[in-house]
C-alpha cells in the first residue's frame, strides 16, 4: 500500500519538474506564448487548461476499455473539445473581461498538443487514479510555466504584478516584453536557464562520482 501511494505521488511530481510539459518536453507552446502578456491572463489560461486536462484524462481513462483503437484519436479530440466548450461558456459567463482578452485562445486549447499527448501516452493505458494524478501534475507544471512567463513579462513590460504597480511612476516599461517578440525572447531565455541548471547539476554529479572513486 505504501508503495502504491508513492507511485501516485511520483506521477504528480514528475509533471511539475522533471517532465515539465513546457520547459522539458516543449509542448503546448502556442497558448503558452500568446496569453502570457500579463500574470492574470496566464493564471486564467492555466486554470482553463487545468480543468480540461484533468477532466479529459479522467474520462479517457475511464472509457479506455471501450474506445476502439482505430478511432481513438478522434474520440480523444471530441472528448477534449467537449470540455473546452464547457470551459469557454463558463468563462464567458463568469469573467467576461478575461474571456474577451483571451479571445480565440480558449477554443484553441483543443489543439494544445500537450493535452492530446497525455491522453495518448498516459491516460489511455493507466488506471483512473494514476491518470488523474498524472493530469494534475502535468497541468500544475503547465500552470507553473505559464505563471513564470506571465510574471516576468508583466513585471518588465508594465512594471506591475497582477495589476499592482511595483516600481512607482519613474519606471520606464519595456514595452517589447508584452508584445509578441517579448514572448519568444522570454521563453527562449527561460529554456536556456533550465538547461544551464541541468548541465550544472550533471557536472556536479560527475565531479562527485569522480571524487568518490578517487577516495576509494
Amino acid at each position, binding site marked *: 500500500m505504501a508503495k502504491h501511494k508513492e507511485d501516485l505521488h511520483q506521477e504528480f511530481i514528475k509533471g511539475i519538474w522533471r517532465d515539465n510539459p513546457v520547459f522539458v518536453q*516543449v509542448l503546448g*507552446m*502556442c*497558448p*503558452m*506564448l*500568446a496569453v502570457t502578456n500579463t500574470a492574470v491572463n496566464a493564471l486564467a489560461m492555466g486554470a482553463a487548461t487545468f480543468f480540461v486536462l484533468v477532466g479529459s484524462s479522467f474520462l479517457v481513462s475511464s472509457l479506455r476499455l471501450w474506445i476502439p483503437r482505430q478511432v481513438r484519436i*478522434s474520440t480523444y*479530440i*471530441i472528448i477534449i*473539445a*467537449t470540455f*473546452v*466548450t464547457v470551459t*469557454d*461558456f463558463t468563462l464567458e459567463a463568469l469573467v467576461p473581461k478575461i474571456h474577451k482578452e483571451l*479571445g*480565440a485562445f480558449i*477554443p*484553441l486549447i*483543443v*489543439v*494544445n*498538443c500537450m493535452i*492530446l499527448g497525455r491522453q495518448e501516452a498516459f491516460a489511455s493505458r493507466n488506471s483512473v487514479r494514476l491518470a488523474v494524478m498524472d493530469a494534475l501534475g502535468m497541468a500544475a507544471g503547465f500552470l507553473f510555466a505559464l505563471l513564470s512567463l506571465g510574471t516576468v513579462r508583466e513585471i518588465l513590460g508594465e512594471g506591475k504584478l497582477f495589476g499592482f504597480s511595483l516600481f512607482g511612476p519613474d519606471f520606464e516599461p519595456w514595452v*517589447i516584453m508584452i*508584445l*509578441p*517578440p*517579448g*514572448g*519568444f*525572447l522570454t*521563453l*527562449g*531565455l527561460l*529554456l*536556456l536557464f533550465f*538547461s*544551464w541548471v541541468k*548541465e550544472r547539476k550533471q557536472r556536479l554529479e560527475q565531479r562527485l562520482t569522480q571524487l568518490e572513486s578517487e577516495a576509494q
Partner: protein
Amino acid sequence: MNELLWIFVSALLINNFVLSYFLGLCPFLGVSGRLDTAFRLGLATIFVMLITALCSWFLNTYVLVYAPYLRLISFIVVIASTVQFIEMVIKKLSPALFKALGIFLPLITTNCAILGLAIFATNRGYGLAEGLVFAFGAGAGFTLALVLMAGIREEVELSDVPALIRGTAMNLIIAGILSMAFMGFAGLFSAT
C-alpha cells in the same frame, strides 16, 4: 477590392499567424530544419487552410446558426476529416505529390493555425470571399515565416554557437528577433 487586399496583407505580414499570433508554433519549431521541407509543408498548409475556410463558411452559414454550442466540435471534426480526405485524393491522383508531402499532411490536423483560422474568420464575421483571401494570406504568411526560419537555421547550423544554447532556446530567440522585424510592418496601412 481594397478591403480584400487589406485582409491579405494584414494576414501575410502585419498580423502574421506565427510571429504575432503564435499559431502553428509546433511545425514552425519542429519542421524548420531544412529549407525544401519547410517550403513543401507551407504549400500543404495553404491548401488545407483554403479548404478549411470554405468548409467553415459553409458550416457557419447553414448549420451552426441552429446550434452555436457545436461550433468547436464541428470545426475540429471537419478539419480532421478534410485532411484525411485530401490525403486520400492526392494519393489517388498524384502519387508524386503525395510522396513529397509525406508525413506532413496528416500532421496538419493538429496545427493550431488551421483551427485558429476558422475561429478568427468566424469571430470577425468574414463572408466567403473574405474568408478565402484571409486563408490564403494566413497560409502564405505561415509559409513565409517557416521558410525564413529554415533559411536562418541552415546558416546557423554552420556557425560556431555554444552547445548550451543550441536547440529550442536558440530557435525561440531567433523567432523573437524575426518577430521584432515583422513588427516593422505594423505601420504599413495605418494611413488608410
